[in-house]
């Protein structure tokens, strides 16, 4: 099996870090992983992509992709301004959106090849609850990994949290792992298309 995953976030939200942690987590699950940033200039607050691949066999593919199995949207405003349209989600794809509980999704703003399960999690609220804020930005990347685990079942939450604790040593790792676990539990299915 091979899963291609896109983290669509804003500069400074830790999309690349999340992609890298996912590789750690995949290894813990006995799988192969690949994580990398969008190759270009990033700017804090501006739309930016990060990518990951997970497979049960060594991964031979390289480079960026714009068709994906899983789309993780780290800020719902990216959907509002229409940039998420650039990423096509394959049939039976999964989308997780960091958005408030009452978020009204406009399906026109997404590019779906076929069926898809679309989830919502308020990673921003979780970050604020755990006082996870860096330079004025709520840290949502680790929560999104927890949500990813619940939404796709590809990687167990235990492997996600232990990868987070390995990536961030000490207290920071603890808090981020808790946030991921909370997101795992608070994930909510928005709609099935």
């Amino acid at each position, binding site marked *: 099996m091979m899963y291609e995953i896109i983290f669509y976030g*804003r500069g400074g939200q830790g999309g690349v870090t999340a992609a890298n942690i996912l590789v750690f987590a995949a290894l813990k699950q006995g799988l192969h992983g690949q994580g990398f940033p969008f190759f270009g200039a990033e700017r*804090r*607050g*501006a739309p930016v992509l990060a990518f990951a691949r997970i497979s049960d066999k060594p991964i031979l593919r390289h480079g960026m992709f714009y068709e994906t199995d899983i789309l993780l949207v780290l800020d719902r405003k990216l959907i509002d*301004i229409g940039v998420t349209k650039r990423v096509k989600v394959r049939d039976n794809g999964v989308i997780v959106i960091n958005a408030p509980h009452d978020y009204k999704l406009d399906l026109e703003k997404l590019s779906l090849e076929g069926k898809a399960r679309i989830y919502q999690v308020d990673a921003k609220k979780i970050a604020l609850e755990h006082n996870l804020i860096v330079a*004025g*930005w709520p840290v949502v990347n680790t929560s999104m990994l927890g949500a990813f685990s619940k939404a796709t079942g590809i990687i167990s939450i235990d492997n996600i949290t232990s990868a987070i604790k390995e990536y961030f040593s000490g207290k920071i790792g603890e808090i981020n792992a808790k946030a991921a676990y909370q997101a795992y539990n608070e994930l909510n299915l928005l709609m099935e298309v």
Partner: protein
Amino acid sequence: MVKEVQIVKTGIKIPLAKPKVGVAGKTGFWRITKPIVNYDKCVKCFLCEIYCPVNVIRVEPDQGPVIDYDYCKGCGVCVDVCPTGALELIQEE
């Protein structure tokens, strides 16, 4: 008597760019804080317009600074250089 250089355009694709507003898109989307104006404190000293790194502040002589929020990056330089506190940085939504 060789004449001036002749520009003979063939329309081939070459790395030549032309002036454009918003080469990095609507950079207003980047910010999480934004400057707002309370006009009664403004003395029209133009410092905000002079220093604004995105060149989106226009000080109207009779009214005061007008900011184009499509492109304002929310850096806050205008707020810091304003001598009278007429500009204030607020958290966005």
